[in-house]
């Protein structure tokens, strides 16, 4: 039997959040955390959480698993259970809508702020804008982000200033477009980031790298942005 403690909060019924304990029979299998959540839902159908693809592609089921942010669907119990106990909480820093479901509005606003689309002021060619294999290779490790918010909600700088610091996820995406040879808005993008908060509130503690379920490295991308700002400003 596995002891599971889950954060519960129904704003219309509960005065404040509380932890609910469950006992789950995993049948001795090394289930994924999401499978455990389905078993919990059989015990209490009011338990609320997001999930969709159940294979680490959609980024819906980001949550705090035994203190570490991750995707429930690709986190096996053998990777996270401590002394037979599993503690599940919503991702920190963002408002809770209900149980494990958080309001990601601020996170998406920060994503929107970095203009996550290709900008090119040159006339469109007849067929497509070409890239050399080397230019394309620069986007590896950047484009794979699924916006699950595990990284940004693990970042203390995002906790304290979510409205000002873009956060690791947004900055990884910012660099994805700064590094793209087909994008011509580099100057405008950099000008938007040169303030004491947007990029420079990152102190390089690498919590983001530690939790990213896709194995990406936002700290490295932020370092690249910093270098671009530096070569533009000196």
């Amino acid at each position, binding site marked *: 039997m596995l002891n599971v403690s889950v954060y519960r909060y129904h704003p219309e019924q509960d005065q404040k959040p509380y932890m609910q304990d469950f006992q789950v029979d995993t049948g001795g299998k090394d289930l994924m955390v999401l499978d455990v959540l389905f078993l919990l839902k059989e015990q209490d159908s009011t338990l609320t959480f997001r999930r969709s693809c159940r294979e680490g592609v959609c980024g819906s089921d980001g949550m705090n698993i035994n203190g570490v942010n991750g995707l429930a669907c690709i986190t096996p119990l053998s990777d996270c259970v401590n002394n037979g106990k599993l503690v599940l909480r919503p991702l920190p820093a963002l408002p809770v809508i209900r149980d494990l479901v958080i309001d990601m509005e601020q996170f998406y606003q920060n994503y929107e702020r970095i203009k996550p689309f290709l900008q090119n002021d040159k006339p469109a060619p007849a067929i497509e804008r070409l890239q050399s294999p080397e230019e394309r290779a620069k986007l590896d490790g950047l484009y794979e982000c699924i916006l699950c918010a595990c990284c940004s909600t693990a970042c203390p700088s995002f906790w304290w200033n979510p409205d000002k610091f873009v956060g690791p996820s947004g900055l990884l995406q910012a660099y994805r477009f700064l590094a793209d040879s087909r994008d011509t808005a580099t100057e405008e993008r950099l000008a938007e980031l040169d*303030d004491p908060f947007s990029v420079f509130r990152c102190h390089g503690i690498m919590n983001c790298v530690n939790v990213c379920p896709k194995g990406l490295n936002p700290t490295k991308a932020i370092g690249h942005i*910093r270098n671009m700002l*530096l070569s533009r*400003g000196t």
Partner: protein
Amino acid sequence: MVRAVTSFGRSGLYDWLMQRVSAVVLTLYTLFIVAYIIANPQLTYAQWSGLFDITAMRIFSLMALLSLGAHVWIGLWSVSTDYIKPMGIRFVFQLLTGAAMFAYTVWGIQLLWGL
């Protein structure tokens, strides 16, 4: 673009660079002072005073003093914007930090040139 008018140099890049340059100056100054004290175990007042009579040493000391002021201001400004949320208290904290840094810098210059 986030607007910040109480930061050291307005630009994030400028503050970031100043923080690093001042850290290098402070490291070099600390290493020099520590090495000097170790190399001169029988240090007398006259010798110590003589060291600070050298123009190069005064320039180095002033550089370290200004670096300290800038470094502390940038650092504490970051701390205040992270942890102090009410605008009034945050502004007063920043004001006091600025005033303290200014006072220490002027006081330091007076000490350096008054010896």
